[in-house]
């Protein structure tokens, strides 16, 4: 039996009563579940997971980033794919991936099983790095570097879709990563 008022009516001044047994049961279990989810996210997955969300972030001036990307391409370019330079960097170099309206530059050719440090930034507006078909997504901002350490485990062609609205040509912005054995 509960001593409560309709939610449309003011309760009496002595409205307080202890929670019932059924409610305490649920409160305890729901509370335990909440703590479990926290432990999973903050302790367990960081210890065991292969996909961590530790962005190595830096501030950068967009024109500097554009210059870094240009010299990176110059140093490691191995070809061209439909007008976009293809770059095959060795694993121990920093990789630069530049987002702009409406292109990802350059196309990257990576070795399967090698670990790379990839630095992504925008030289104009905000963009979204969406690696498909694995569906890995990161935000790309001007003035910031989104830095990741990535290791591809399967050879093949991967597409980078822009998934942050960046202007009327947003849907035209596609890039590529080629993973070779």
């Amino acid at each position, binding site marked *: 039996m*509960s001593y409560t008022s309709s939610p449309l009516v003011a309760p009496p001044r002595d*409205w307080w009563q202890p929670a019932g047994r059924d*409610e305490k049961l649920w409160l305890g279990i729901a509370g335990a579940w909440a703590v479990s*989810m926290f432990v999973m996210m903050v302790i367990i997955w960081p210890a065991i997971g292969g996909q961590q969300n530790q962005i190595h972030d830096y501030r950068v001036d967009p024109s500097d980033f554009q210059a870094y990307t240009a010299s990176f391409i110059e140093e490691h370019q191995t070809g061209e794919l439909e007008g976009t330079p293809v770059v095959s960097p060795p694993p121990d170099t920093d990789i630069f991936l530049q987002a702009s309206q409406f292109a990802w530059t350059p196309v990257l050719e990576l070795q399967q099983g090698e670990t790379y440090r990839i630095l992504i930034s925008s030289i104009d507006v905000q963009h979204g790095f*969406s690696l498909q078909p694995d569906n890995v997504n990161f935000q790309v901002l001007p003035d*910031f570097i989104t830095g990741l350490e990535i290791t591809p485990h399967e050879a093949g062609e991967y597409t980078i879709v822009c998934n942050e*609205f960046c202007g009327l040509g947003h849907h035209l912005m596609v890039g590529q990563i080629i993973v070779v054995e």
Partner: protein
Amino acid sequence: MTAEAANRANDSILAGLMRRCNVTNLAVDHNAERLIMFNAVISVVFLALGGIMALLIALTRWEAVHLLNADWYYRVTGAHGAAMLIFWILFFEVAGLIFGVSVILNRRLLWPKAWWTAFGIMFVSALTLLGIMLSGEATVMFTAYPPLQATSWFYLFMILFAVGALIAVIMFFIELVNARYRGEVGPLPLFTFAMLAAAVLALWTLVSGAAAFIPTYLWSIGVLGHVDAGVYRLLFWGFGHGAQQINLVAMVGVWYVLAALTVGARPVNEGVSRLAFLLIILFIHMGAIHHILVDPGFSELSRAVNTSYFIYGATLGSMIHALSIPAAVEMAQRRKGFASGIFTWLKKAPWKEPGFSSLVLSFWLFGVMGGISGVIMGTVQVNMIQHNTLIVPAHFHMTVVAGTTLAFMGLSYYLIPLIFRRDHVFPGMAKVQPYVFAAGMTIWGLGTGFAGHAGMSRRHWDSTFGDMPLATDIFQNAQIDISLVGLGLGALIAGVGGAMYVINAVATVFTGKRTDTPHLPGIDPDALRPADPAEREAALHGHDHKRGFEFPGTLILVFAFLVLFMILYATSWFELSSVNWTIE
């Protein structure tokens, strides 16, 4: 009602400033009534406009139809977001604030002119904003992330709209303090308490929005040279996500009211229900970080702590409501004699009453599809495989559309006849409307969710990529095709449900039969029942010698919900682990 309030209300009725409602016996201030009318009608107008735009968007994303061109698709997507997430919801919520601080407290508004000013500013700004967004001068989406720039008028009217809303929120606080000061109310009715929680969240939200938009406006007119893209996102989401938390709290308040109106439900425990609102006030603003989980600029730990609402404090608040709402319904039904078995109370519930079906469907879709997907998406690491995909709109349409919008529709089936003093024109249509709308949203949500699950981006005009350089056919496969059929057909069905609602609302407001006693047979005789002092002793000491469960059916339902939650949560980690790249 206190004696002071009763006397004052009686005097006002004699003076012709208030009226006594024949159905609820509440004393209704004529000013409050007119303000509720205008806010409610305008909110429904924006719902209708936003709904038409929703169909245009869905029929474009459904690649087999692909209705709009790119320019119009992006314009309409931005305008739809503003019309629905801000205008429809906020006008309805201002009506709710006025209802909570005037009508159900049986008191007159202290300062109606300020409320009218708020309404006027919001109305003019909202119309202007829609015009600007559809003109193509502000194709920056609802989020307007700099440095993508809109016309400066866009930012200016955004700020003005927020000023209007802020006036309403501040007036709510002033009215409440005034009511307390004049002895018109002691402890607040639970609905008013919920609206107070909503107003507290709104204050934070609007301050955050001002901090995002004022510098952006100054940048757009050339006063500031630069707006930091990362800082803007942090501030914007204090506003953007905060605004949805206002909806959440207002919706829970409406759920309690719908349960009271349709089955005479009262909260199981005043304290527990209020504690849940308090948990949400304390922790839910941290949810702003949900949107920037894969942004540079914040440590993983800070993102994890924030996004967990500090150890899921706000989730716990929502889990309490997940129990307390059905428990209130179950106990009310058992009191009525549907006490046998475990689920008789549910079978014998008034399923043909639009308020009850809206409550159940809104509660179910919000919790199961919106709530669980939200907690999963807000997990720092899992967010990497969901950010900015169609899972995001799938999630927030389950909360804001299937949840909040359906709950508000349900409430208005009572509010419109009572406030406008007219009979429903299409009561038969009202009975089926919640089912049609919910069915459409469920199909839409599943289709959109699965398309996002396959990686499809939100806000993307053409996922077939045509014949541009480096094009790909990754989004052309059977899973996506079927998902998009769900997205398109679901939207059409929900559109029919939405149209049924708007047609009945508009017809009732303008052509319904005038009456001082609207025909609302579904309102439970106990809808406005105060606490019974005779129950006090039993409530304080009764639990000790009680053997069975008080609400066994509800407990089974919430445990089933928890198991589903756990399964989906575990599945999402499994999916993350199956990504073929190591990311560190």
